[in-house]
């Protein structure tokens, strides 16, 4: 069996999973593999089971500003599909072009717009999962607010493929912000009390001047900030360079050590089945 397999359907994925397990092989889920080095550096499965061929937009509800997409779609492709409807997923993250949304959420990749829009998990309303025993289960809801049952979605997101394969994601979308703009600000100015109410979408180190930051600000804050207008092109370049550096692992904080609950939770997710990454 090849090291990386890319099934075209859920059924094919399930049969590949069960077949590999039947052969005693360790299976780990993945997307395009762009984040494996950073988020699963020590995983050595026999088979990487990729959801990258599952790329459909299952539904888009423009009025309710929600959508459901398969986990193999890229962030870039999603944003492109949403733009004609003046909607977006409020996430700016590395690997937008090549990486998959499943990989982004399962690795808990930080979003650069986290300060304003919240961490990536806050944008997920529900999901469909394939457990290690091949069972397909849903979590969450398609509405923007639901507290029915445990928040299994949050438990499985960020679990780096050790608990379940992410098949699709129901996402909360937001309107595009057409009036955001770039500014350059001295780092020390950011500490001023007047800056406390400042909210920015992105805050990126200036490519040339280490004492400065490029800020992508929402709304019309131009008059209230002691900053100079920035050249949009250089700021965008700074953003792209920064994202690339993250992709290369240059800004990663150390991965947390495995949760002491991991094994028990994996067993609860798929009783009796080999856990992902485990040989039996």
């Amino acid at each position, binding site marked *: 069996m090849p090291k990386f397999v890319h099934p075209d359907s859920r059924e094919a994925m399930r049969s590949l999973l069960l077949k590999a397990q039947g052969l005693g092989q360790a299976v780990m889920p993945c997307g395009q593999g762009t984040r494996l080095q950073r988020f699963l550096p020590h995983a050595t499965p026999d088979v990487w089971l990729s959801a990258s061929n599952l790329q459909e937009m299952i539904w888009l509800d423009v*009025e309710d500003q929600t959508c459901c997409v398969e986990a193999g779609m890229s962030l870039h492709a999603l944003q492109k599909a949403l733009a004609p409807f003046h909607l977006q997923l409020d996430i700016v993250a590395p690997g937008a072009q090549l990486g998959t949304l499943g990989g982004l959420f399962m690795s808990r990749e930080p979003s650069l717009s986290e300060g304003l829009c919240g961490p990536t998990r806050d944008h997920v309303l529900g999901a469909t999962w394939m457990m290690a025993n091949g069972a397909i289960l849903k979590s969450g*809801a398609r*509405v923007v607010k639901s507290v029915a049952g*445990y928040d299994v979605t949050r438990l499985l997101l960020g679990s780096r493929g050790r608990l379940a394969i992410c098949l699709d994601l129901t996402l909360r979308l937001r309107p595009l912000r057409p009036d955001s703009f770039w500014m350059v600000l001295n780092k020390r100015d950011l500490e001023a009390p007047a800056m406390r*109410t400042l909210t920015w979408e992105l805050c990126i180190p200036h490519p040339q001047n280490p004492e400065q930051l490029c800020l992508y600000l929402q709304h019309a804050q*131009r008059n*209230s900030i002691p900053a100079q207008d920035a050249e949009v092109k250089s700021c965008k370049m700074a953003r792209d360079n920064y994202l690339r550096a993250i992709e290369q692992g240059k800004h990663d904080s150390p991965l947390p050590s495995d949760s002491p*609950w991991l094994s028990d939770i994996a067993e*609860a*997710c798929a009783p009796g089945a080999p856990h992902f990454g485990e040989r039996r």
Partner: protein
Amino acid sequence: MNRSCIEELRQVVGARHVLQDAASLLAYESDALTLFRCKPAAVVLPNSTQEVMAVMRILHQEQIPCAARGAGTGLSGGALVPEGGVILSMTRMNRILEVAEEARFARVEPGVVNLDLSNRVDRLGLRYAPDPASQTVSTLGGNVAENAGGPMCFLHGTTSNHFLAADVVLADGSLHHWSTADDLDLRGFLCGSEGTLGVIVALTLKLIPKPASIITMLAGYKDVPEACAAVAAIVAQGLRPVALEVMDQKAIQAVECSVYRAGLPLDAGAVLIAELEGDVLHVEKEQSRLQEVLEQFSPIRLETAATPEQRLAIWKGRKGSGGAIGQLAPDSYVMDGVVPRSKLAEIMAFVEQIEEEVGLPVANLFHAGDGNIHPHFAYDARDPRQCTAVEEAGAKILRKCLELGGSLSGEHGIGLEKQHLMREQFGEGEIALMQRLRRVFNPDDLLNPGKGLPLSRGCAEAFHRHRRGEHA
């Protein structure tokens, strides 16, 4: 409960803080949903993490079920224990432990009242965003246990988005720290778990800057469908209000006849409260766009709160409306369901139809931006037929929410109230997964048993015997 167990509990928390007399226990036999009542064997009021750990060890040893409780403002029959169980009242643990101004977080004990935290950090230019209507009394521990929402959650998200870490005592008395930095998001899993996984003894909560400018607009429309249409149009325009709230005529009238009087238009069939926040220029710009949209639906009255006092009066009316509706009948059954926002008009028409069928008044107020409805049935709990009627009507409305693609609860939780409907939202596989996950942390089902998930028949009977005052 045997005498030696009570004695041990007294030694841990002090004799004054173990309540057993009938008068004291009466206050703990239900939460704010009085359809469900069950008198605990005792109420224990710990004052520290160590005391909670010691109490839990005693209860675990004796295999006594217990439920942690904050202010008892829950609306789903959550903080109740079956006969022989213990209520752990967290209200003495009400200290704000730390406020980190620069890093924008606060560490608090679970018994701190929601609004007290915002009041405490106000002078720092900060606030805590989730604002349930009960925020003047409900505790932050209870808010996390239920994943509480509130009007401002349309923009800022529910408690889960503002809850960074917790110290949790499990049923066996062990202490754990779960945070956003962990390998697995047990913190997220804990939020909204209705006290069935552990007892929260400390919380770290995100604080956000107070906005430089807030604009609150009030629009009166001829009926609820018009108000819902205005909500849809606001969202479709790409506006990002912080709150979009609707109240129907019965709710308006109840408020205007109460101490929460807010000057709402009595001739309107519905009012829409829309609030914007942000920096001054942004809010000014959005306000004119918002006003344009609101005017498109021919409002009977359209006004903007001219002063902070007027704004507060509007919100006092909105947040006090649940209490004001209490005037309509001796009891009130507050429901909580969610539909996709585009289905709001449809679900509200269905609620009206149910109201006619049942023949009891229903007042409506809802978080329109989130599609989160709260029909309030006014009834008399002394009449068993009315009790049955409102329960059945509630179930019909929730089933309709599910049919429209929604959820059984947006912010009140499942508790005892809705556990029998969980299999209609989730499949057997999903329910079984949740049950197995519960057992990882609460293997003997001692923590708030019977809540959140479908009950076994025996357990259901144990609770149902105690409904509607049927207990001795």
